C-alpha cells in the first residue's frame, strides 16, 4: 500500500504543493483551498507540510453523522462522499491536526484524497520532501540517513 510520506527536513517552503493541490482539485490556484498546508517558522527557517494522515481509527469518520466519511481499506484513504455530506463541519472540529478543513467559501469540506492514486503535490515537490511510496519504503530513507550519522560517531570513537 502506498502512503504520502513527508520529510520535514527537506521542505524548502516553496509552496508549489499548495498550488498544485488546489489546481488539481478545483482548476484554480488558491493555497487556502489546498488540502496540504505549509507552516513557516521563519526564525529558524523550518517549513512543515501538513495534510490528512488517513488515520486508521479516524475521529472525522467517527463524528460524521451521515456516513459521508469512510475508510477505504484497499487504498487506505479516508474518503469523503459529497452526496452524503451535509456540511455540518463536525469533522473539522474532531480532527486533532486541522487537516480536514473548509474551503474559503466555508461551504464545502475538503480533504486529501491522494488525487485518486497519484498525488499532484508530490509531482511538483522538487525537494522530495513529499513522496508517494510503498509503506515499507517510507521510512527507510530516513533510517539510512540517521544510520550514517551514527556511523560517523562510531568511526570517530574508533
Amino acid at each position, binding site marked *: 500500500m502506498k502512503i504520502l510520506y513527508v520529510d520535514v527536513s527537506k521542505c524548502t517552503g516553496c509552496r508549489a504543493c499548495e498550488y498544485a493541490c488546489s489546481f488539481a482539485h478545483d482548476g484554480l490556484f488558491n493555497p487556502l483551498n489546498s488540502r496540504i498546508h505549509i507552516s513557516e517558522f*521563519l526564525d529558524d527557517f523550518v517549513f512543515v507540510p501538513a495534510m490528512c494522515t488517513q488515520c486508521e481509527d479516524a475521529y472525522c469518520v467517527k463524528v460524521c453523522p451521515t456516513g459521508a466519511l469512510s475508510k477505504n481499506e484497499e487504498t487506505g484513504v479516508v474518503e469523503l462522499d459529497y452526496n452524503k455530506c451535509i456540511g455540518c463541519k463536525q469533522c473539522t472540529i474532531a480532527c486533532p491536526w486541522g487537516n480536514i478543513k473548509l474551503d474559503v467559501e466555508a461551504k464545502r469540506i475538503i480533504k486529501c484524497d491522494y488525487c485518486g492514486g497519484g498525488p499532484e503535490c508530490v509531482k511538483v515537490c522538487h525537494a522530495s520532501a513529499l513522496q508517494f511510496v510503498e509503506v515499507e519504503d517510507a521510512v527507510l530513507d530516513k533510517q539510512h540517513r540517521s544510520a550514517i550519522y551514527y556511523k560517523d560517531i562510531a568511526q570517530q570513537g574508533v
Partner: protein
Amino acid sequence: MLKGGYVGRILRVNLSENKISVEDINEKWAEDFIGGRGYATRMLLDEIDPKIDPLSEENKIIIATGPLGSTYAPSSGRVMVITKGALNGAIACSNSGGHFGPELKRAGYDFLVIEGKAEKPVYLWIYKGKVEIRDASMLVGKNTKETDKILKRLTHPEAGTFQIGPAGEKLSLIANATFDGHRMAGRTGVGAVFGSKNLKAIAAKGNLSIAVADRERFAKAVYNARDMLSKDAFTGKGAAKYGTAVLVNVINGVGGLPSYNGHDAYFERAEKISGETLAKDNLVRAEGCDSCPIACGRVTEIRKGKYKGKKGVGPEYESIWALGAACGVDDLDAVVMAGYLCDDYGLDTISAGATVACAMDLYEAGYIPKDDVGFELRFGDADALVKAIELMGKQETEFGKLLAKGSYRLAEYYGHPEFSMSVKKQEFPAYDPRAIKGIGLEYATSNRGACHVRGYTIAAEVLGKMDKNTYEGKAKLTKTLQDLTAALDSTGICLFTTFAIAGKEISELFAAATGFECDESEFLKKGERIWNIERIFNIKAGFGRDDDRLPERMEKEPIKSGPSKGMVADLSGVLDEYYELRGWDKNGVPTKEKLQELGIEDLL
C-alpha cells in the same frame, strides 16, 4: 475580457491625501506590456515626469506582480518595484522573490501604486481587498527581520510582508526593499524612495483564487518547464546544493572575478569564500521562493570565530563577491556576517560591498584620511569590512553618511570619481567586463545602471559555448537577452529559470495562462517594446550615449593576474553595432521607424 493570469485590478494609495482608490487594468497594455516590469513602466511613463527628483513627493512607486504569479509555474512569485531610482534617477525595476507578490495578488491586486508622502511613518495593511493606512511609529528604526516579525503580529501570522530597514528610513541611496524579512529587491536604491514617502512596511493577505485561460495547456506547459529545470545541472542540482555561490570558483576559474575594487579580475584565495566552502562551513539548508523548484536561497549560520552563533540567510554569489573578493577579504565568516548586517539594515549587498571596496582603494591611495574613517581601512581586513558596513548602516558619522550614498558619491567627494566601479552611478556586479566582453556591453547599456540581470550574457559566455574574449556576436547576444529578460521579468518568472528554459517555454506559459496568443518571436517583441519604453524614460530623464560607458579603469588598466591577464575593455565598436541592431540612432535614441514598428511612436 481577461481570461486568466491577472486579477484585473490596480490599487492606488495616495499617502499625502490618505486616499485609496481602485481601477481596472488596461487590457491592451496587459497584452502589449505583459505585466510586472513592462506594464508598470508603461504606467510610470504616463504618470510622472522623468525629470523629477527621485526622492520628491512627485515620484511614484509601483509594486507589480506578473500574470504567472500565484500559480505553480516554476519560480513565478517574483515581485517588482518600479520607480524612478534613488541611486541614479534612471528607470528602476528592482525584483525580489519571497511570497509577498502572490499574496498581494490574492488580496485582489496585480499592481499597487504608491503616491505622495505620508506625514509620519506609516504601514499598509491590505486584507482581502480592503486597505488601511496605519501608524508605523512602533516599527521605526527596527531592522528588516524585526519589522517582518512585528508586522505579522500586528496583521496576520501568514501575511506576505514588505519592509525597509534603517538604511531606507535614512534615505541611503543604496537601500533595498525587503520582502518577508529576508528577500530583497536589492538594486537601484528603491528602499530610499519608500523612505522618502515615510512608508515603512506593507502587509498583505488574501483569499482570491487565480484562474488561468486554458487549464490543460497550462498544466502541460508547467510540467514541461519543471521537467527541464530538474534535468538541468545548475537549476536541478548545483543551485540547491551550493546556491548561486557555486559561481565563485567558476567565474574566478576563467579570470572574471573582479577583486581589489577592479584592480584585478582574479582572486587567488577564492576557494576560501566559494560556494563549496559555504556549503561545508555555514549552510544549514536550502530555501525556495514561491513555487520555486530551484531553491537557491541559503539559510546559514556562523559556527566559529568572533561571530559564532549568528544565523541568517545568504550570502548569494554577488554578496560573497562584493563583500569578499572586491574588498580582498577571504574570511568567509566575516563575509557572511557583513551580509547579515546588510540584510538587517536593508542595504544592497552588491553596492554596499563595492562601496567598501572603493573606500579601501581610496584609503590605500591616500585620498581618504584615517581621521575620517576612525580606523585603518585596508584591502583584505575582515574587521574593517564589518565595521565599515556598520558605519554605512547606522549613518551616525559623516563618513558613514558618505558610504551610505554609494561608491560614486564617495569617490566624487574625495575628488576621484574614477575610483568608483560603476555605470550610471550604480556599482558593478560580480563579473569583470574586461575578461567577459559581453557583460561589459550589458553593464554599459543596462537601463538601470551596471547590472547583470537585465541580460545575463554569462550563461552563454562562461557557462555556454560563446567565446568570452571577443566582442563578436555580443551586440546581438546582449540585445536578445535584454529583450527576453524584459519579457520574462514581466511575467513574474525568475531569471534563473533561463539556465534551463527559454523564450519558447516561457511564452507558452504566458499564452496558456492569459489567453494572449504569443509565440516565441512575439514574446521577444514584447520584450523589445518594454526595453524601448525604459529607454524612452531614461532619455526623458536626461540620459544619453555618454552614460552608456564603462569606467576608465576598465579601458586603461589591464587585468593583473589569472587566466584573463592583460585584458582590457573597449566598447567603442560594439556599442555602435548594438545601437544599430536596436534601431537607435548613433546617440542611442530610438528611431521613429523602430518605435512605429513597436507601436509606441507616441511615447517619445
